[in-house]
Every structure is written in structure tokens, then in C-alpha cells.
């Protein structure tokens, strides 16, 4: 065994990013690391490359215990990494990039000729015919990837970690990259391949390991695994009490009045045009893998990105939602996926975060009186059970689950008719998780309609009436009633190669 990880754990305030994870890598294999956002892939890699210090567990490389404390130490030990956004310098030449930090010298100065010679040697065997004297930035992303790989292999030479290397490559470039990867594998390197493109994983990898919520779910040989099984592993398939309860509430859905009708909403390169009708008090789920267009659908509906096609109507006529301000005026709300960068304003108080959207909607000429602000904040702190010592504490001091509740409170205070929740339970602990699901059910009883996006299928089917399945930036299928169950959703997500015709019908 080239690399073996045992019982690796890493916590951040409010979340347990890795929880007792085991992982093995053989020399001469390509091993895929799979999981949705927040599953723990990048934390695992950062522990390996020394960017994070692990809390517990051990890592052995060639049987030796290692504990890298920086990326350069990991490199010297033999673990090299290539990221999606290539971490080389496009303003230097290919040769300078390849030999960076160990330039051949002559009389104390960099020997340009020897440098280019060395660079050409390093690129030997990668099937690249490029001028190492030109700026790296002059070449395509695929070439830069391969240069980065060549550098990492030359520096480290045992383990190569590729983090989403194909995200910005076209099909021909992917093939070129895969040839390079297979060649390295045959030379005896252990390669960890992180990607969310399942086709590529099946095409390239010998084994795969699935992470979910910081735990290792399984390690399988790729050849023995079918796609449905894999998606089940990634999205979870533990039926529990909550989802059984939910199954009984489905039948009442259809007689509710129609609230909104999205027709042909789409934007090139973001999401293909889709139709969606939303009824009053209904909870709709969006399911699909990472990159399938879930978040993008929400962004089009809320005007974060302006739709290029289609129109939206309610009972009174057309509804405009080309910008967030228009969407809010139309009675929409949106709690985004990335709480830290898009949700909270960490330096402002809990109270100010809660009234933010409400005040923005009223306009600055009609300020909410301080007493009313306090009342609203206290009301939601009590209602959502936000754990904070007082409403004037900066929201950045709260735990992840409580921050999420503050973002929820911001939108509930607006009393929107249509609320979009993108991964409402991401990165929060189990207790707060269940509370947020309970809240979703409560607020729809008051007539609000909700769209929930989630990678956790169990969570999704526990709260929703209908599920829209997305794949490759397209709305593929709508599942209602009895069909709202994990295996049906998993099959719908996985069906790309098996039933393309049926899928196309549903997309219309």
C-alpha cells in the first residue's frame, strides 16, 4: 500500500468536516474521491497536503508515518497536487514554471539554456510539443494542467492529487489529459482523482471512495459498481422515520391554487429553458448532482443571473424577476447555498442581519423604528430558537446552524410568498438540521411556497411534495406522489445513458 489513511478526523467550529475517515491508495492505481459539496473531499486533501493539521488519525506513506505541516513538506515527502485553477504563474515561461525554485545556475545567475534543457527533459513523455521558452499563459488550460502535472511529478513522484482537473476542459483535452494520467499510473504513481463527472470517473478510475458528511461511505472497485448504486452512495439512502411520515402528506398537494408559473426560463450556458408551476403552500425539491444546474435554477428565479428567455406569471399577470430587487418586490426570497460569502454579514449584529432585506424593501426613507427592529429580532430569535446571548451580537460569533437560522429569519420576516432555500442544512450540526426541516414544514402550513435544493435525498423527500430532477443543466423529470422516494430519484439522476429519449421528453 502506497498511502494509507486511518481514522482521520478534522473539525472546524460548528462542523465536523472529517469523521474517522479511512482511505487507501495503491501504487499504480487511479483512485477517485467522490462526494457532494461539503462531503469532506477538500478537507481530506488539505490534510494530506499539509494545508490543514488533522485533529486525529494517522497517515502512512510507504509504511512510514507522516505528518506534513506545509505543502512544501508534503511535496518533499512525495505528495504533489494539481488544482483546478492551475497554481502556476502564467506570466513566466513554461521553463521558468517547471524549474521554479531549483533553477540551474551558472556563475550565480540563472542559466537559461540549461533551464530550458531541464524543462524539456521534464516534459518528456507527456506528448506535449511546446516551446518551453514561451509564456505559460500563451497555452491552453489543458496544456497548463499537464505542465503542472509534470512539475508535481518531478518534484514529488509518489502520490499525485488531481483536484477537479477536467472542470474547464473540452472533450478532446480531457482525452489528452487522461492519456497522461494513465501513463503516469503505468509508471507506478498513485493518483487521487477528485471530480464530480461520473462518466470520467468510470472511464478512468480503478477504484473509488465516496465521502458524505465527513464520513467514508464506501470504497469500491469501479468496474463492479453500477451508476445507480454510486449515486445512492453519494446522495444517501437511509430511509428513516421522517421520510415515511412525509409520504402520507403527498396526496393533498394537487387541489391547492396555483401561485406562480415559470415558462421557458433559461439562460445559455447556465440552465436550459424550463417550465415550473408552483402551488400555494407547496414544497418543491430540486435534486441532481453537483453541477447539474440546481443552484443556477434558483439564481435565475431570483434574478441573481438575469434569464435570457421565458416569462413568469402569477394570478394577476406577468411577474418580473430580472434582479434580486425585482424578485423581492415580487414576493420572492432566497437563502443562498454559501452562507458565509452570500448570506450573512459577519460584522453586523443578529438584529441588523435579520432586518436587512425588510429594510431594503421599505427603502431608506421609511426606516424601521428601533423598537420595532428589536421586536422583530426578538420574535425570530425565539421562534427559530437562535442561540445568541443577545440580538446585538455580531452574527459572525454564532455557530453555523444559528447563522443559517438568521438568514432564514431575514426572509421569513419579509413574509415572502415564494422562498428558495439552497442547501439549507449544509454544514450545520444534526440538531439544528432537524429543526430547520421542521421549520420548513411549519411555514408552508401558513401558505408560503418553498423550493428546496439539497444534496441529501433523505432530507429532500422528508419535506417535499414534488421533486424536479436535474442533470447537465437541464430539468429532466418531475416526480410526484409515490415517486418521491430515494430510489426513484437516484434512478432518474442516473438514467443518462440508459434512457435518453425518455429524459428528453420530460425536459420539454
Amino acid at each position, binding site marked *: 500500500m502506497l498511502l494509507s489513511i486511518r481514522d482521520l478526523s478534522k473539525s472546524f467550529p460548528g462542523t465536523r468536516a472529517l469523521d474517522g475517515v479511512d482511505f487507501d491508495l495503491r501504487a499504480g492505481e487511479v483512485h477517485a474521491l467522490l462526494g457532494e459539496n461539503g462531503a469532506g473531499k477538500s478537507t481530506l486533501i488539505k490534510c494530506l497536503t499539509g494545508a490543514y493539521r488533522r485533529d486525529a488519525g494517522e497517515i502512512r506513506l510507504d509504511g512510514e508515518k507522516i505528518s506534513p505541516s506545509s505543502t512544501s513538506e508534503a511535496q518533499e515527502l512525495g505528495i504533489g497536487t494539481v488544482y483546478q485553477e492551475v497554481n502556476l504563474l502564467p506570466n513566466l515561461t513554461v521553463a521558468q514554471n517547471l524549474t521554479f525554485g531549483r533553477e540551474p545556475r551558472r556563475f550565480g545567475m540563472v542559466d537559461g539554456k540549461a533551464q530550458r534543457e531541464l524543462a524539456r527533459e521534464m516534459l518528456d513523455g507527456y506528448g506535449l510539443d511546446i516551446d518551453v521558452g514561451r509564456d505559460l499563459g500563451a497555452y491552453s488550460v489543458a496544456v497548463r494542467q499537464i505542465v503542472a502535472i509534470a512539475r508535481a511529478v518531478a518534484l514529488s513522484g509518489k502520490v499525485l492529487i488531481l483536484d477537479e482537473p477536467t472542470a474547464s476542459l473540452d472533450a478532446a483535452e480531457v482525452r489528452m489529459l487522461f492519456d497522461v494520467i494513465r501513463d503516469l499510473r503505468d509508471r507506478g504513481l498513485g493518483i487521487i482523482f477528485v471530480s464530480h463527472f461520473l462518466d470520467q470517473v468510470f472511464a478512468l478510475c480503478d477504484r473509488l471512495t465516496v465521502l458524505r458528511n465527513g464520513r467514508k461511505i464506501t470504497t469500491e472497485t469501479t468496474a463492479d459498481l453500477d451508476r445507480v448504486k454510486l449515486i445512492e452512495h453519494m446522495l444517501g439512502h437511509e430511509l428513516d422515520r421522517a421520510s415515511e411520515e412525509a409520504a402520507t402528506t403527498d396526496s393533498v398537494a394537487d387541489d391547492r391554487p396555483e401561485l406562480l408559473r415559470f415558462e421557458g426560463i433559461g439562460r445559455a450556458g447556465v440552465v436550459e429553458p424550463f417550465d415550473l408551476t408552483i402551488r400555494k403552500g407547496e414544497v418543491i425539491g430540486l435534486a441532481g448532482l453537483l453541477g447539474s444546474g440546481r443552484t443556477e435554477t434558483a439564481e435565475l428565479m431570483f434574478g441573481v443571473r438575469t434569464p435570457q428567455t421565458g416569462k413568469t406569471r402569477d394570478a394577476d399577470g406577468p411577474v418580473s424577476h430580472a434582479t*434580486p430587487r425585482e424578485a423581492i418586490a415580487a414576493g420572492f426570497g432566497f437563502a443562498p447555498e454559501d452562507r458565509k460569502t452570500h448570506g450573512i454579514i459577519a460584522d453586523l449584529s443578529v438584529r441588523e442581519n435579520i432586518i436587512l432585506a425588510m*429594510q*431594503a424593501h421599505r427603502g431608506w426613507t421609511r426606516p424601521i423604528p428601533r423598537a420595532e427592529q428589536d421586536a422583530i429580532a426578538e420574535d425570530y430569535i425565539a421562534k427559530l430558537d437562535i442561540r445568541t446571548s443577545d440580538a446585538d451580537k455580531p452574527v459572525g460569533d454564532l455557530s453555523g*446552524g444559528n447563522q443559517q437560522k438568521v438568514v432564514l429569519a431575514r426572509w421569513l420576516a419579509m413574509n415572502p410568498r415564494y422562498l428558495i432555500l439552497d442547501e439549507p442544512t449544509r454544514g450545520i450540526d444534526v*440538531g439544528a438540521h432537524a429543526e430547520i426541516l421542521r421549520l420548513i414544514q411549519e411555514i408552508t402550513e401558513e401558505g408560503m411556497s418553498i423550493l428546496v435544493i439539497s444534496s441529501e435525498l433523505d432530507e429532500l423527500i422528508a419535506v417535499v411534495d414534488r421533486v424536479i430532477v436535474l442533470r447537465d443543466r437541464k430539468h429532466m423529470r418531475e416526480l410526484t406522489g409515490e415517486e418521491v422516494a430515494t430510489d426513484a430519484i437516484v434512478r432518474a439522476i442516473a438514467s443518462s445513458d440508459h434512457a435518453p429519449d425518455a429524459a428528453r421528453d420530460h425536459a420539454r
Partner: protein
Amino acid sequence: MSDITDSSTDGTTGEQARASWRFLKNHLREYGILFALIAIMAFFQVATGGILLRPVNLTNLVLQNSYIVIMAIGMLLVIVAGHIDLSVGSVLGFIGALAAVMIVNWEIPYLLAAILCLAAGALIGMAQGFWIAYFRIPSFIVTLAGMLVFKGLTLWLLAGQSVGPFPRQFQLISSGFLADPFNVEGINLLSLLIGLAVAAGLAGLAIRNRAAQARTGTPDEPMAFFAAKTLIIFVGIAYMSWLMAGFRGLPNVFIVMALLIAVYSFVTSRMTVGRRIYAIGGNEKAAMLSGINAKRLTFLTFANMGMLAALAGLVFAARLNTATPKAGAGFELDVIAAVFIGGASMAGGVGTVVGAVIGAFIMGVMNNGMSILGIGIDYQQVIKGLVLLAAVIFDVMNKNKG
């Protein structure tokens, strides 16, 4: 479901202890800057043998720093919004020149000219803010360009000459003092009364706030800290106004400055518009998703900065009683330094008006004190630079520990 626990309850005591520790440290910064000012003043008071706090010098100190303070208020908003404005020094010079040309050469009534100058300042701010807000051109670049442009326009407008003097009426902006209706011998009673009223008012407000806090929950600030802070502010203001009343009373500029500080403090801490500037500076994306028109707000922040720079330009021109092509050179650096010494964050979203004003006075007292001591301009620059660096290092370390 009732037995569900959140991580914050698991570690209640630990979390609370950490939170209050962090609170204390946050406030350490606020107390810190006030104490720094007091310590610096005390040091120079002793080192200069009591010259620093002589009524005439104190009055001078206020007059010398008024334009920096006025611009620091506007700069605080710009920096909280996550931007920077390098053009303020040049705009100050340009508006001074414009005022001189209008009043002296064209003989426009000084009041009308002053209003036109303020409007021109606001327009300049808008012209720069337009590109920054709506086209996302980095503010550093836009205002660097503005700095060069208005430096050039000042030269052009004055044709390389100094223009002056201004009519007496206009000079009063900077050299006038509050008239005293009481006519008491040796003291400007109205100024003293105003000073005492303001000191009492501030103390009263602080006590009322604390009472309100006590009603809704326990105040975070320990009683001793609160009492000491309130007392120091009360005594400080009362003593300063006593000193100044003993000379010629409160300068007109001081009144303008105090009003601006009060108004902008209120706007930034209580009013919607002000809080929104903190929101866009803290997390622009989240603010926009909440429906805040971040672009317009950025635009207005720069318009406001331009207007305040224009006001500072009028004050400066009136003080020198002439407009010179060199006026305002390098002022932007003092203003920006004052705001950062006052605890604002380069990343935006953090900072207070009062902090920026105290920062400006720290710089001012050091300038004044070192000049009295006869320290050369060379060492003065070095010392001021190191103080700025130390203040920001202190901030960053403080933040990292929390």
C-alpha cells in the same frame, strides 16, 4: 424534538466565556484609541511644559486639524464601503482655488460661491463614484486619476499664482469665534455653557442607553468601565470648553465640525443609509441578494466624500486667506491614516466616525506637540508612519486572536 441540542448549548459556559472575552477585546480597541489619545496628550503636555493645553494652542490645534477631521468623516464612509479615495487632497485644493477665483476675481457673493463650491465638490465625487459604482473600475485607480486631474485643474484655474485675499466675511469660517451675548470679563460664557451642555448631554445619552440595555438584558460592559469612560468623556469635554472659553470661545469651525461628527455618528450607527454602507462593505454579495442597491449607495458615498472635501477646501482656503496651487498636497494620506488609526478595516465593513475623528486628533496632537518640541519634519514623518503601522498591526493581531 425538544431535546435537540445545538452546539452552542453544548459548550454554553465555554462559548459565553469566549464571547465575553472577545467582546472585551473588541472594546479594548475602542478604549485603546481613546486612551492612546489621552496618553499622547498627557505626554506632550508634560514634555512641552504645559504649552500643549494652553487655550491659544488648543484653539490652534482644532483649527489646524479641522479640515482633516471633516474629510476623515467622509473617508470613513468610503473605507467602510470597501473603497478608498486618493483624490481628496487635490479636490480640497481645487475647490479652494474655485472659491478664490469666484469670490476674488469674479466677485460672486461669498455665500453663493460657497454653495456653488459644495455643489461642485459633490459633482466631482459623483463623477468618480459613477465609474467606481456602475463600471466597477477600482476606486484606487479612479481616484488616483482624480488626484492628478484636479491637481492639474487647480494649477490651470489659478494660472500658477496664489489668489487672495478673501473678504473678511468669508475668512470668518475659519478665523471666527462664537459671539458671546453675555459679555462676561475674561471668558466666553456661551461657549462654556455649550461645552457643558454637550458634555452633560453625551453623559446623559450614555446613561440612558445603558438603562435601556439593562431593561432588555444584562449590559456587556462592566459597570466600572462604563463609569470611567463616561466620566473621562464628560470631564474631557468640559475641560476643553473651559480652556477654549478662556481664550476667545469656540471657533466657528469647531461648531461645524462638532455638528458633522454628531450628524454622521448618528447616520452611521442609527440610520438605515449608514448601516447599509456597513452591509455592502461587510459582504456586498449578501447585501445585494437582500435587495440593497449597492451601486447607488457606493455612488452616493463618493458624492458625499466630494462634498465634504469641498467643505474642507473652503475651510482651508479661508484659514490661509488665499488659494495656492500647492494647497491640499498630501492631505489624502493624513486623512486615510487617521481613518485607519481610528480602527477602520482595509477590507471594509468596520470602523466608526468617532474613531476616525480621534485618529485625526492623534495625528494632529502629534504634529502639534512635536513641532512645539522642535522635532524636525524629518523625524515627525518617521514617527507618524510608525504610529500608523503600529495601530494597524495592533488591529490585525487583535482580530486574529479573536
